[in-house]
């Protein structure tokens, strides 16, 4: 009972499309249109942590929260790369994660996209030069789009996914 | 119609007992008891309605007041005082307990068959379930370790007897029911003191701790 009344009082907290940052709104509308066209508005995302500090993961979790609610665009996170259309890779690729990352890419059925999230994924960030790090994500798998930021905001991750959808024409 | 309703009502009352076997939390146990008492009061009122017996209405109202509201409140207070100890490891595990509960109900069905066949009352159909509740409550008292659970089993036993009386005799004289109530109230107070004492002595209301008294 208590839970029900709380649900009723809270209402829908997802930020509606027309509100908030106009740039983000514009972007999100674009994402919506693109996703619809390319993947039938149903995009399975597989997250691969290739050695990140988990800062990016916190932001990615934000994508699933009631506020950003990426599910409304038909994005959902899946449990296996076999179900995925897009890989969301974070972190500098560590030696231990090099093979798993490659295997994940191979396991994903075509058409597939890769979005590398965070500064580390592009330049290894503070980990650059470490003996434990192989290098940026694109040294291991082909990357469609990099999302900068340490960590990037959820909105920017959305933007990255959009750009990937637009460029990586499957 | 009456027979359908009395089976339905008794089933709900019995389900309250089976819920005790199923759940583990103290709050859930109190909830099951409350549910059972309300269902019992409703069944009594239903029988009273069809029998045209105002006394049963009165009894139902009293029952609702005492067992549906009063005792659960007291129990919740007890729970707050002693902290909610869950029935984590009963002597018989939950799934087996439930199956035994089911078998007890079937047993009740078999043993009451002669009883039911002599009765002419339309409410007789619910009697096996009332006996079933009596068996299940006894099983709860035997198989559970926490004193609070056992108190609840005792209260449910009383509910079962009240249900049997209502269904088997089509209503009981109010004076008898008041006597029973007093009995229960007394028993409840004794139990409460008992539980309190156990808690004082052992810092827990697990009756297994009583084994230590032997030493």
């Amino acid at each position, binding site marked *: 009972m208590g839970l029900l009344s709380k649900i009723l009082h809270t209402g829908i907290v997802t930020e509606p499309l027309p509100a908030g940052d106009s740039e983000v709104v514009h972007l999100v509308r674009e994402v919506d249109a693109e996703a619809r066209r390319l993947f039938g508005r149903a995009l399975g995302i597989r997250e691969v942590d290739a050695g990140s500090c988990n800062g990016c993961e916190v932001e990615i979790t934000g994508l699933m929260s009631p506020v950003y609610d990426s599910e409304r665009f038909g994005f959902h996170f899946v449990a296996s790369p076999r179900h995925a259309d897009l890989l969301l890779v974070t972190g500098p690729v560590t030696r231990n994660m090099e*093979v798993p*990352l490659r295997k994940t890419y191979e396991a994903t059925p075509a058409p597939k996209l890769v979005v590398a999230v965070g500064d580390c994924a592009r330049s290894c960030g503070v980990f650059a030069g470490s003996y434990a790090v192989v290098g940026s994500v694109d040294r291991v798998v082909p990357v469609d789009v990099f999302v900068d930021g340490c960590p990037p905001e959820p909105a920017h991750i959305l933007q990255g996914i959009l750009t990937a959808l637009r460029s990586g024409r499957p | 119609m009456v027979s359908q309703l009395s089976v339905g009502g008794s089933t709900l009352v019995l389900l309250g007992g089976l819920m005790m076997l199923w759940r583990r939390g103290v709050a859930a146990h109190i909830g099951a008891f409350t549910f059972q008492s309300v269902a019992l009061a409703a069944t009594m009122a239903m029988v009273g309605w069809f029998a045209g017996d105002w006394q049963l209405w009165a009894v139902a109202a009293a029952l609702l007041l005492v067992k549906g509201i009063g005792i659960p409140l007291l129990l919740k207070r007890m729970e707050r005082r002693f902290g909610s100890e869950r029935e984590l490891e009963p002597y018989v595990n939950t799934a087996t307990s439930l199956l035994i509960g089911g078998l007890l109900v079937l047993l009740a069905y078999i043993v009451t068959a002669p009883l039911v066949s002599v009765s002419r009352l339309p409410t007789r159909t619910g009697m096996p379930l009332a006996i079933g509740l009596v068996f299940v409550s006894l099983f709860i008292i035997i198989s559970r370790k926490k004193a609070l659970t056992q108190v609840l089993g005792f209260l449910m036993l009383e509910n079962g007897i009240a249900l049997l009386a209502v269904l088997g005799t089509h209503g009981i004289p109010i004076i008898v029911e008041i006597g029973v109530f007093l009995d229960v109230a007394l028993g409840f107070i004794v139990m409460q003191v008992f539980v309190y004492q156990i808690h004082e002595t052992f810092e827990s209301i697990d009756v297994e701790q009583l084994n230590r008294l032997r030493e």
Partner: protein
Amino acid sequence: MRALFFLMVTGYATGAAVALGLGTGPLARWASGLAAVVGAAAGLGLAAGVCMAGTGFSLAAPDLLASAGGLAFRLDGLGAVFLALTSLVAAPSALYGVGYSRALDGRPAQRQAGFMLNLFMLSMSLVPLADGTLTFLLFWEGMSLASYFLVMTEADRPEVSEAGQWYLGMTQLGFACLLGAFLLLPAGGPTTFVHLRAAAAVLPTGTRDLVFVLAVIGFGAKAGLIPLHVWLPRAHPAAPSHVSALMSGAMIKMGVYGLLRIGLDVLGGGPAWWGALVIGLGALSAVLGVLYALTEDDLKRLLAYSSVENVGVIALGVGAAFLFQSLQMLPAAAFALAAALFHAVNHAAFKGLLFMGAGAVLHATGTRNMNRLGGLIRGMPWTAALFLLGSVAIAGLPPLNGFVSEWLLFQALLPGIGASSPLVAVLMVLALGMLALTAGLAAACFVKAFGITFLAIPRSPEAAAAHETAWSMRTGMTMLAGACLFLSAASFAILPRLSAVAAPLVGLPAPGPVLRAGLTLQTPDGLAQMSPGIVAASLGLVVLVAWVAVKRFASRRPLRVGETWGCGRVVQTPRMEYTSTAFAEPLRRIFAEFYRPTEDVSIDFHPDSRYFVQSISYRSAILPWFERYLYAPVIARIRLWSERVLTLQSGSVHAYLAYLVAALVLLLGWLVVTGQR
């Protein structure tokens, strides 16, 4: 019919003679096997003839063993069903045996195996034909002994000789009970079943009850009803696989046959508790059988326990027939009996198939331990497909024959809920619950049996090198797979026959309850129908349409073959797979109170730190509790006695002579005492 009878006997006898006479080469194998196939075909023809014609077949041979009263044969509907199921398994087994026993070429064991196999099949075929005490017990014992020798084919392995001991012990215990039962039936005058029936009608109630209980023990031991099943999971795996197929498919059904013959035919049914007893044993066997099957890692032991389960399921139907008959619910009784008979025939088909499949696996890999198998579907595609069919059938899944008989049994138990006695109604509810639990667990069990054995990556080099078996073995399996399909598709035509067989046994006039409406099966009250054929056709059609639609409309991108997804781990080894033990783990935990497994975990730590583990060894065993509490004390007691007897063994000839004289004196004294009275 006479001709068929003689052809059958001649076929098996020729097979036996040829095995003895033609040496130990392929020629002997083939000749003896083919002769047996002829015998089995004739047996099937004889059974079909009796079933179709509806009239019995009888033949007296008073000159054979004349001093004991002579032999007599008669085949009625009930016998025909069991002769049919025996012949149904015998022909493929004989064929399969030709390929299977190639390993014995050039060894004297070959001779013995061929001879005993034919003798086994012959005496087993004659058991349902036997008419009268002597003939029945003679062939019964012949069947038991021949199968004992077959179990002991590889007697050099210690577990085989242990299995043989268990088997012999239980068989003889059962035989003693049977002897008692038959002797309690009045022996004066001719002992054909007709006479026994007339005599049994006037027996006092106590004697009738005793006869029935003895029959339940004697036949139950052969059928493998729990707790008399202990020989079964030992002897079946020890025997060569086609013999296991015969034993599981046909021989244990003879226990059911005997129970029906004595209980329903000769004694003509009894009080309600007879039925309740059989239902109780059946429910116990069904649930415990499948629970033990689930935790087995040995493929053939798993199948053996599954036979215990299926005999339990059959016993549920038989018990219901007894119970309904005593309650005067005759159509329901006939229906339950027909359902049980159909399940017996079905089980013969798929269990025979599965044992042969297991034999093919054993032949190809040399192991029965499922934790060392896997991936055989690539090396042995035929065996795999046939085993899969058998698994679906035995798991009771539509549209195969296992489901049909399970459906019939469910429907047959349903009227029991309507019985006026609350005790009977409750018993039926519990029996239904048990039956459903058994069906569910059987499905889990055969996912394990097929999945762990045939799918995924081979768990040992032997499994990886497995090869397809000889075509004679595959033909044997294919025949039984065909039988499974046929029994399902033609069930609407078979059931009325079985109903006609069952009806006179429970005291109904000949055609029995109607179990057919057009091409569908129907319950006697006409309220529920089912047609495996239509279900299969719809399923096939839907699958076909889906396949075509997917081909036509879905993406045409070619399939890409990749590595198994394992969260990116570097390499996959068979050790990462789920094993047979692991598969059963959830159920083993859920039923832990029942299994009471013993577990033994030992961990070796690194000498420097307890945080580093060098090795973990885990060992777990389940000792069935009736063995622990029922058999172990008895065996210990017998050991004790035999040790005491050992002290009598002085080795001196004089001592033995003294024993002889003492025995003689005692015997004479006893004669004198009884003679005086």
